[in-house]
């Protein structure tokens, strides 16, 4: 369950990065549709956070330690909303690039999460 979520969230983050990168290449700021995309990715990360905590509560142990696992889960959840708010403050193509960078960062976090969980 968690592995599937990690994969889906990582791919969604990359798709978001590509989409916002495309907007930036056309010199556009982030628009409503981009924010809906960010919301979708954020919800995926939130579901992942909840599922991860439920797994821990059931007594399952991540390979590389519970503290690091929870820290990465929280980081993954906060990543896209933070980038989204910054793109609200920067209504140029650079706001789009910031969200694109956020998508790449989230994808990297998902790869690390997969390792930490030991999938």
């Amino acid at each position, binding site marked *: 369950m968690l592995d599937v979520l990690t994969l889906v969230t990582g791919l969604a983050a990359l798709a978001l990065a590509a989409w916002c990168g495309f907007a930036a290449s056309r010199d556009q700021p982030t628009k409503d549709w981009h924010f809906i995309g960010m919301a979708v990715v954020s919800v995926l990360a939130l579901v992942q956070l909840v599922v991860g905590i439920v797994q821990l509560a059931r007594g399952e142990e991540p390979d590389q330690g519970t503290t690091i696992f929870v820290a990465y889960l929280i980081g993954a959840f906060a990543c896209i909303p*933070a980038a989204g708010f910054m793109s609200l403050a*920067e209504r140029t193509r650079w706001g789009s690039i910031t969200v694109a960078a956020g998508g790449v960062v989230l994808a990297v976090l998902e790869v690390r999460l997969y390792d930490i969980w030991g999938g």
Partner: protein
Amino acid sequence: MAVASSEKNAGPDDGQDAGPGKGTDRRRLISGPGMLLVWLYGVMVVGAVSRSAVQISTEFDKAPLAYSLSAIAGIVYGFITYSLVRGGDTARRAAFVCCGLELAGVLIVGTWTLVEPSAFPDATVWSDYGMGYLFIPVLLPLTAMYWLRKGVLRQQQPDVAA
């Protein structure tokens, strides 16, 4: 082509920022590419600080040098992020100096980890020139110094872009 048009768009905005802001208001450092820099620095702050906090509190004896260096890196990143967000000329100069320190740190520690790996039983943020962080630690100060330097040029000749 896209780059050229963006500079054209950015020109008048920057002129407005520099004009009335001169003397009284703080000049914004996070407009345009500065916002991307703040985001990347913010990510590095969270990465370096949380990593060193966990490692120092749980297994400090394993590699005290490496974990202390990560903590120092986190503090430097934090200061640069704060300076960028705060804006103004003093903050710009302070951030510029810190980026220089950061670059020196990443080069020295990066070389150190390659020459004498035995001193580092575990990795730091700056190990192998920041390879574990996609080389962002070595690329970021160069980009930031370029950006902050551009701020100088813009202030001296506000009309140059317009």
